[in-house]
């Protein structure tokens, strides 16, 4: 009986040893996170909500890849169940129960199946988006631990613990298990520990409450250092979040800049932040930044991250369109865009290192309240001949129409004219701010110039405070996001509607009666700042359905739509790539065979209109609706 007794002690002991080793490894890792800045974290609340966050929110993302979802459920569930069950076998009554060991064996068997599923993604050939390196040994460790565990548990269940088989099985399980635990510091298993902690201490807890928590956090302009220059400038829970990265590469598939061959790969960026923190981090083994630049420069919590000679090239930073596609796809809930903006803030505010072409627009924003340096009074020039009421001197209106930057654009002026005519037809009591409307500062903020954004936000809020209006309607999702989500931090609380939602409301109220445009096929391109930043994907589609066009969906649509390349200051940064983002998006639109690409954003209009040799027409939803409303006359 010495054999089984020894085994029933050693086996749970192994799991406890694994747990201890993992704890030590996490502790060593945590020392690095402590280099980060302080951050307020609601620990108890986070801990209480951890299961829900994991099972609902994370699962929702993971389930988009059915294979990965099943694989993870099996392997992680099995691993966790088997390990916990085995660990509990330290209790003599359980250790003595053969049924219990059957249960344990079953759990290990499930893990083993999962391990093979894991292996199948990497052998014989690795899926392209996955990273190699230490991840390549993960299936072996898993198989060893699972197979060894199954065998040991089976031996215990059968009561035959003697023989040479038992020590061998235990040794196999120990090799795999301790290997897995060891990997918690630098290897693939880090994602489990850091990921769980990240879910507890997530910097944007609002994401799990069902509301789009997408507003950039205001920067304290009196802080000793503005933005992030080195890993230690990030808050500790952000450093933790980067450690949660499991290198699955979903972000890189979603990233428009990566697809266009611009030097940005979100996975690589996060891994560079991880590697920048710790010189001991093993080499990155995934797809490189397009262009193939190798990381260089010093590493460590106090090493400079950005620079032509540092770990991350500035072009990588300026390639980002802040479309949040990577954030949307990330199963570990990492906030890539926040990282990019934080790094940009340092570049812009402390070093004045804006991309050359962005200097002009940002300077004009600061000095003239408008990125083109044009007169604010010229914003309403698009409406020449239309009766466009100006709020100044009027005693309050229902709807304040926020025109935004697009008003200066010749093409987009047509859309705004259509919108104004629709509002007139529906007898909406509306007005514009006229020469009092400044830019919302969206461009400055995405490019990291928080000082200019804040001064513009304060000026706009002061202007709006002088007027009485019911709600704000805007056709510019970027302005909408700033007004709705980012101005509250500065004391501006408004009800802001996108024009598509407002037009839908007018249709539903019977104030606009669209006629059916049957013979038109339309595919709708979701603006990032409407769909992903604000979760509004249905209103524009409902308007299109009310018009009666035949609506086709692109492969990527709704919250998972691809960016047009016009956000985050990318058009002014103009980082060279191999292709252009709008060309890629128009090619996707062409696949649907639709004759019209419906848009709902001035940036998308400008970017998609600029695609050479495009077959489809670019029409704003307001233009289509006006056409349908007027078709009856």
């Amino acid at each position, binding site marked *: 009986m010495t054999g089984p007794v020894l085994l029933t002690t050693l086996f749970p002991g192994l799991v406890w040893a694994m747990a201890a080793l993992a704890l030590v490894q996490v502790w060593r890792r945590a020392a690095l996170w402590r280099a980060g800045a302080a951050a307020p974290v609601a620990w108890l609340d986070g801990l209480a909500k951890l299961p829900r966050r994991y099972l609902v929110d994370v699962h929702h993302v993971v389930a988009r890849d059915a294979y990965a979802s099943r694989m993870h459920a099996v392997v992680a569930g099995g691993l966790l169940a088997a390990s916990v069950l085995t660990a509990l076998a330290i209790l003599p009554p359980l250790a003595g129960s053969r049924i219990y060991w059957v249960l344990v064996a079953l759990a290990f068997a499930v893990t083993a199946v999962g391990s093979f599923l894991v292996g199948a993604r990497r052998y014989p050939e690795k899926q392209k988006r996955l990273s190699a390196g230490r991840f390549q040994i993960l299936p072996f460790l898993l198989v060893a631990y699972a197979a060894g565990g199954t065998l040991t548990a089976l031996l215990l269940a059968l009561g035959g613990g003697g023989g040479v088989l038992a020590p061998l099985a235990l040794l196999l399980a120990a090799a795999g298990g301790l290997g897995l635990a060891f990997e918690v510091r630098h290897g693939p298993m880090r994602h489990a520990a850091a990921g769980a902690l990240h879910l507890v201490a997530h910097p944007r807890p609002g994401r799990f409450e069902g509301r789009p928590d997408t507003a950039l956090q205001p920067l304290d302009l009196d802080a000793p250092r503005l933005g992030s220059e080195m890993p230690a400038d990030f808050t500790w829970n952000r450093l933790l979040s980067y450690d949660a990265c499991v290198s699955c590469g979903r972000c890189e598939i979603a990233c428009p800049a990566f697809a266009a061959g611009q030097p940005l790969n979100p996975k690589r960026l996060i891994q560079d932040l991880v590697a920048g923190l710790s010189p001991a981090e093993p080499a990155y083994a995934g797809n490189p930044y397009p262009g193939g630049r190798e990381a260089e420069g010093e590493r460590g919590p106090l090493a400079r991250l950005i620079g032509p000679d540092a770990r991350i090239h500035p072009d990588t930073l300026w390639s980002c369109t802040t479309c949040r596609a990577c954030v949307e796809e990330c199963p570990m809930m990492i906030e890539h865009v926040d990282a990019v903006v934080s790094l940009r803030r340092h570049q812009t505010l402390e070093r004045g290192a804006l991309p050359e072409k962005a200097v002009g627009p940002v300077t004009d924003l600061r000095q003239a309240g408008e990125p083109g340096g044009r007169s604010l009074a010229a914003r309403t020039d698009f409406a020449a001949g239309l009766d466009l009421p100006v709020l100044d001197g009027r005693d309050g209106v229902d709807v304040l129409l926020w025109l935004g930057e697009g008003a200066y654009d*010749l093409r987009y002026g047509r859309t705004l004219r259509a919108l104004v005519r629709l509002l007139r037809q529906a007898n909406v009591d509306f007005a514009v701010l006229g020469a009092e409307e400044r830019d919302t500062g969206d461009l400055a903020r995405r490019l990291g110039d928080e000082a200019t954004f804040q001064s513009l936000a304060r000026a706009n809020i002061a202007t709006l405070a002088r007027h009485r209006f019911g709600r704000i309607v805007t056709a510019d999702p970027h302005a909408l996001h700033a007004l709705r989500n980012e101005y509250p931090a500065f004391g501006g609380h408004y009800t802001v509607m996108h024009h598509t939602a407002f037009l839908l409301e007018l249709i539903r109220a019977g104030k606009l009666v669209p006629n059916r445009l049957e013979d038109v096929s339309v595919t709708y391109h979701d603006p990032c700042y409407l769909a992903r930043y604000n979760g509004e994907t249905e209103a524009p589609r409902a308007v299109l359905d009310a018009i009666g066009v035949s609506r086709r969906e692109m492969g990527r649509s709704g919250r998972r739509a691809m960016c047009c390349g016009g956000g985050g200051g990318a*058009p002014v940064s*103009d980082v*060279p790539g*191999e*292709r*252009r983002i709008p*060309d890629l998006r128009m090619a996707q639109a062409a696949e649907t065979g639709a004759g019209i690409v419906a848009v709902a954003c001035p940036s998308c209009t400008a970017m998609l209109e*600029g695609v*050479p040799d495009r077959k489809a027409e670019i029409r704003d939803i307001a233009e289509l609706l006006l056409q349908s409303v007027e078709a009856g006359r």
Partner: protein
Amino acid sequence: MSRLRRDPRAERAAQQIARSDGASPRPRYDRTQRATGGRPRRDPRAERAGQRVAGGVRPRYEIGQVSRGEGPVLAPRPQAAPEAVAPKILILEAPAFLIAVVPDAAGGRLSAHDRQVLGAARTLAGRDGGVVILAPDACEGIGSAGADRWVRFGDDAAAYDPAARAARLAATLGALAPRHVLFPESLDGGDLARRVAARMGAPLFGNAEVVAATGVIRPARGRRVEQRAMPGLLTTVAPDAVAEYGGPPREARLLDVEAASMAGRTGPILAATRIPADPATVPLTLADFVTAAGNGIRDLDTFRRLVPALRATPGASRVLCDAGLMPRQTQVGASGTVLAATCYFALGISGAPQHLQGVAGCEHVVAVNTDLHAAMIERAGLAIVQDAQTVMEALLRRLAVEADAGEQVA
């Protein structure tokens, strides 16, 4: 001008020939010669010519009398009249006062800007005043540009020493005692004027856009306001703001002015060399002549050979830059570079609105494109609807032939 009234009697009369013996007139045999179509045909060119005094120098005061008749009252002015009849030189013996003009006269030639300054000076001088030009020896055509007097003033040497030049000028002006001194508001002229102003302690009215004896006007505060003042001693005249002198040539008599000669004090400038602009490397914003390639060009090697052969600066449309075929800094257009070139030569560019924004400031546009309806063809001063590729090759051939011819003769 009112429409000509038909006069049937006159028409009939025109078809008759008066007899010398007093017999009743007989009809013409050749009726085509005179007013066959009823209403006489108007000849606007002849009318306009008739509205000018002989020689075409200025319009007639009374223009009504000229074109009423059936035929031109005056014989049409021969085209080459001003050259053929040597114009009378206007001589002003004793000018009541002097208006001095200090032209750039780079390379010993009056620039268009210099002529405009002379025109401005002529307006200030009126009938009684004299315009005195301070120009170097070799300057041609100063009389016809409006100068009554000429003071020899120029670079003693090729050396660049603006301070010494200003000192000499101040001394010369002191001896001349003109009522006003005008400079062109150019790089060198503006610099010289300010040096003289600082040296003489006289106020300078810079960048005047209107010059008249009743007042000079200049823009200020970023062209938000304009400042008006009576003409002072020193004024610089903005380019392309004032018309050149268009009257008969003037005498440009040489005046000898004794100015204190400057001691040969060595200035702080040790050396100065001119570096001419290299069209291949000059930034697009500064380029004078840009040759740009667009989507219609398949073989960029030919383009790359053509650009230096034309001594042009290379440009490109967005599509080529996006495709990486041309460097990004060559992109012309709203999102690339906005040009200020004298001439833009567009090869295979259809002319998207953003691209046309980039060439809006170009004085001349030459376009080659296969599409007759391309916006660039419409914009161009010389538009050629042809495959850009074959035209480029033809251009290269022709340039090579010309170069060969030059060598052979040499």
